[in-house]
């Protein structure tokens, strides 16, 4: 297991380094410059560019960037979005909001999705299964922003049960309360996906030979299902649920806009629009870091659940 983990860590570091490089290059290769402003005198622009090492060749800029990131945790300073504020500080302030609705929506989606999927699998081709199937189709096909707008209109505006947009000023309790609707909006598609996959996996496991063996051992259907099927069905589910985190994060960019949440999503868009190099790279790296971390976690969790992965056995 130790060897397996070390291997995964190295792989994650390599991936992260590559992403760092690509993100830097891609942002720098965008047309225009952060200081493209007709109101600034050319001398001023030249001076500003010199300060930010923008007059040097790309590789030298890259070296400065790497040095700052690795040795000083210096991700550069925002030039346009919040001039003069270090990119790291901006993200540090915004990440909690984004993470709250993302983690919250998954925490909501997991139990509901698992229950729905299990009900559907155990009542295969009966009423319960059909109800879940219809909800799954709706959940997958309705985009989260449409669902979010509906929630906003009916639940928040018409019924007045929730604040319409994020309330930053009235204390933590109010903040969390106002983040509930966006959380629900984001959890719709994960619920549907989890339910759909779990149903399929459980049905397959329930029909497998070792379930029959478990019953011929003298276990009741219920004992056999609990002891033998959930762990096996959860194996492919891990592959779905953990990357969902990165997926939901991407979806939350739009949701954050709809509910005026000061999260990372808005910053990414505005920093790219304004050619705010440092902030754009830092935000991209944040998203990349989440993705790399999730796939790292998948590998570890799969290793924990499946001895064949952990011990490096053959397929069967």
């Amino acid at each position, binding site marked *: 297991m130790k060897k397996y983990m070390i291997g995964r860590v190295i792989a994650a570091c390599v991936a992260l380094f590559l992403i760092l490089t690509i993100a830097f290059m891609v942002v720098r290769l965008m047309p225009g410059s952060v200081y493209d402003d007709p109101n600034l005198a050319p001398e001023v622009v030249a001076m500003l560019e010199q300060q930010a090492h923008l007059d040097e060749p790309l590789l030298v800029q890259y070296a400065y960037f790497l040095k700052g990131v690795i040795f000083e945790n210096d991700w550069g300073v925002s030039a346009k979005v919040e001039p003069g504020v270090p990119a790291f500080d901006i993200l540090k302030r915004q990440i909690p909001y984004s993470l709250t609705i993302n983690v919250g929506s998954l925490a909501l989606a997991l139990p509901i999705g698992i229950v729905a999927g299990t009900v559907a699998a155990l009542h295969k081709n009966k009423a319960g299964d059909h109800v879940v199937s219809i909800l799954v189709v709706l959940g997958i096909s309705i985009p989260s922003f449409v669902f979010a707008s509906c929630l906003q209109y009916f639940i928040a505006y018409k019924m007045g049960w929730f604040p319409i947009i994020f309330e930053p000023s009235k204390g933590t309790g109010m903040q969390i309360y106002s983040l509930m609707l966006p959380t629900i909006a984001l959890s719709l598609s994960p619920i549907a996906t989890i339910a759909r996959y779990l149903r399929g996996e459980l049905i397959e496991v329930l029909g*497998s*030979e*070792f379930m*029959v*063996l*478990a*019953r*011929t*051992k*003298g*276990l*009741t*259907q219920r*004992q056999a299902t609990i*002891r*033998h099927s959930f*762990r*096996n069905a959860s*194996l492919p589910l891990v592959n779905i649920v953990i990357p969902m985190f990165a997926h939901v994060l991407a979806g939350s960019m739009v949701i954050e806009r709809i509910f005026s949440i000061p999260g990372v999503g808005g910053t990414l868009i505005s920093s790219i629009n304004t050619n705010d190099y440092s902030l754009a790279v830092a935000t991209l790296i944040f998203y990349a870091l989440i993705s790399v971390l999730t796939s790292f976690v998948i590998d570890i969790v799969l290793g924990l*659940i*499946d*001895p*064949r992965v952990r*011990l490096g*056995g*053959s*397929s*069967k």
Partner: protein
Amino acid sequence: MQEPYVLQVKDLHVSFKGQSGMVRAVRGVDINLPKGKTIAIVGESGSGKSVTVKAIMGILARNAVIDQGEIWYEGKDLVKATEEDFYQIRGKKIGLIFQDPLSSLNPLMKIGKQISEVFTVNYSMSKEEAKEKSLELMRAVGIPKAEERYNQYPFQFSGGMRQRIVIAIALANNPDILICDEPTTALDVTVQAKILDLIKQIKEERGISVIFITHDLGVVANMADEVYVMYAGKVVERGTCEEIFLDPRHPYTWALLSSMPDLESKDRLLSIPGTPPNMVSPPKGDAFAARNRYAMQIDLEEEPPMFQVSDTHYAATWLLHPKAPACEMPKFLQDKIRRMREEAQRYAR
């Protein structure tokens, strides 16, 4: 009065709901399992052997229906038994060994736990006690270094070793009846022999009655006291091992024996032409008639009843009717049986 049979199947009919109609998989099967004996059920794929034992175990697929018949065990008709009744019987009284040991063990659970959960769940034993019992069983079925193997996973076991584990699981409940559903099909030949020896040894040590399902007649000869030959959901011939091998009466049994390889034969093996009939609409008359070189007009019109050959030997073929023309089994098979007799005598001496 002492009941001579531990298990009796009477006129069992099982159908499956299929897309093109009801599939009549088992169409009137009678089986008597004497205490402490081994019976073998032989037949090709789709002849209804597995369905019959699944009905006995109460593990038929959801779309299966038992149309009629009785399965008597300990004074109870298992056809009428509820799922709760089966919890007391399945595994605990009647054990089952599967065809494919590769897929019948849970890949994510330690071998030891898969055996010991029988003790912890069914008999509420403590973990230590269950482990002790499980290790005992693992040694009994011939697993070396049981202590070490206990904490390993199925993928670390070979096919033969896995089948031994499956046998150990079946034995953990100390059943009266052991059903072996083609237990050696997925194993290679040298391992097959060892598993068969193991089953034989277990049967003798524990006095278990065994139902042995196979399509391999060679396996039957070593194991069975009595043989049932099934075709298209029916028992077409039954008799002692000797009667079936040395004095077969049904053309299907002839065909089966002719397709069995032996060492001395220099001829090509005979295969049975055609395929088994579609069981959605089983043919009128004898189901084997279409593939039978010896079929008569009546075979296409009316189903043959079971004709008695001796006290223990029955066959369902019109050839045994007193008015049927005398019909000899094929020359090829006569030679083969002569060789088998000679060999049997050689061993007897």
